[in-house]
């Protein structure tokens, strides 16, 4: 099984719902965003960018690409970043030594470091006493590696896990569940009958920075008009 995702950029309306629910469900501290949506080439989201022969405006959601040839996994000196049996690139929060080599190696800028204790950042944000958000339980893989916990330890790296806590239960990642435009599809790249493979047979999916050979498992259907 190899999980993958297809994002149809013609359907994406740039509402950033995926980014916000990702932040919520994965309990990201203020200042940390695993999932981002921007308007390529533009300083401001949803403002047209200068482009060849005029202007262009489309929206590009970017989170972890779960690369087959993942540079982050290769550079990790302690194997804290690994690809699991379902093709998800995960981080063992109990093994990461915080060297941040993976932040330098990742071409997509998706890796986020815990520069301070996330509990501290959340406390400073001034939430109501006793308030917390996100999936509340720690989640471990089959070998017992800690791949999700609401408050990551200080000094480790974190990023999108394809919502490991949900996909392990057969649910889709929260960005897929929540997209109001239905722009995101999620499924098994090894299953020829999965919906994403049906779509990818019909339309040519493109991957970001394909020339680097990282072989992402997130495909984009490019906008027909930019």
């Amino acid at each position, binding site marked *: 099984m190899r999980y993958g995702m297809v994002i149809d950029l013609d359907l994406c309306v740039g509402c950033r719902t995926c980014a916000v629910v990702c932040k919520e469900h994965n309990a990201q501290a203020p200042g940390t965003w695993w999932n981002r949506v921007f308007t390529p080439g533009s300083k401001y989201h949803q403002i047209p960018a200068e482009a060849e022969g005029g202007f262009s405006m489309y929206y590009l959601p970017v989170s972890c690409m779960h690369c087959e040839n993942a*540079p982050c996994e290769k550079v990790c000196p302690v194997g804290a970043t690994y690809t699991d049996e379902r093709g998800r690139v995960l981080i063992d929060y109990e093994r990461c030594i915080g*060297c941040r080599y993976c*932040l*330098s190696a990742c071409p997509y*800028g998706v890796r986020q470091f815990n*520069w301070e204790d996330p509990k501290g950042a959340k406390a400073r944000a001034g939430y109501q006493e006793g308030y917390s958000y996100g999936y509340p339980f720690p989640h471990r893989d089959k070998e017992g590696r800690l791949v999700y916990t609401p408050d990551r330890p*200080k000094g480790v790296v974190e990023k999108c896990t394809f919502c490991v806590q949900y996909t392990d239960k057969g649910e889709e990642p929260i960005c897929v569940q929540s997209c109001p435009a239905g722009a995101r599809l999620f499924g098994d790249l090894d299953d020829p009958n999965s919906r994403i493979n049906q779509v990818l047979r019909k339309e040519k999916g493109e991957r970001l920075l394909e020339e680097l050979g990282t072989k992402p498992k997130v495909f984009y259907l490019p906008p027909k008009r930019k």
Partner: protein
Amino acid sequence: MKTGNLALGFLGGLRKERGEATSGMSKANLVFRLGQVLTVVGLVAWGLQLKNGLFITGLRNPFAWGLYIATFAFFVGTAAGGLIISSAVYLFNLKTLKPFTRLASLSAFASIVAATAAVLVDLGRADRFYQLFFHPNFRSPLIWDVLVVGTYVVLTFLSVYFQLLPIGAKEGGRFPFAWATSLPRDQVEDISRRWTRRVALVGLPVAILIHTITALIFATQASRAWWNTAVLPPDFIAVAVASGTALVLIMALFTIDRHRFREFQGAFRLLSKIIGGALLVHFFFMYNDLLIHWWWGKEEAAGTLALVFGRYLPLHLIEVVLPLAALLYFLSRDGARSVGALVLGATAVLVGVFAHRLLLMYPAQNRFPLSLALPGKTGFWNYPIAVGQFRPGEPVFATFWPYLPTVLEVAVALLPFGLLLLISGWFIRNHPFLGESS
């Protein structure tokens, strides 16, 4: 609180012994004391960093490696001096440099310890350092760097140790030399010579490996145009020869008595020539690489070059002009005539190399791999990255990170410098380090 007591202890020691140190070893003692102070400052700052997180540095998600890694690369470079010089003496029979082999090994040992400290303070979870041994991932250049740097720490220490053995055994044979006191003097000399040579023979390839693998940490990253070049490992070696030799030169000038300067002038001239030659090779590599990127005009490379020759031009000028001035100075007639001139030149080289190491970070980090070239413009658009810090009132998504080390970060970075001074000061104070000129 422990560190606080430690600090007081050190300062107390400083006060007590200030009066005694008057001649001969006094300079070394001063260096040792300065090393103590810097080490304590660095340790206290590191303690604060461990408590609060790397939050206290100027680094953030868009700019993940900075002063610490630059300092690490700098000290890996200066660590070359030792074994390159001792190897040159043994392999090429350069007798003029023989009096400096002990000192060179010491500079290598002190530098590589400093480099280890620099990379240790960079870790977000230094407490999990043991994971490197329990779960090594041999595809990572970093694990190989840990291995070769670790080996180099041991080898340089052994090199210093075996060279000191005859003296140590003669001077009453305290702890690490005690076993040799019962042996005949000739035999001790023989062991020293034989093992120093053996360590040097193993050491030379390891010395080359530490630069190669440290360079490979960067050069393997195909997504960063600034690093991804095959010239980086040879260039690291060139820079290492220049900066390592410059450090040995400074330490040698520092150790000799002023009136013996003439005696060693030939050796100093040779050292400064090695520095100059290595710098020429370094500039040759660097500008070849830049030229190739510029000529083809690929958009990623153009964006990086725009950073090097635009925003970071001052740093680039420092890395080029200072060593270049030193180089011309060394090659000139007056360059090797006085202690002051040589120290000035070697210092300029070291400062320039440090700037070079800092510049290894800036254009690589601030040209995000995921970016768009803008039509008809020299600039580029970096896909924004969340900085990873709660900062109310300030934008959280950055397309550029104006990295500047914080005061506390600089204080932490004093730790490796402190250790270098501490180790070299201690050894030079307690043991004769200068050999007889041939």
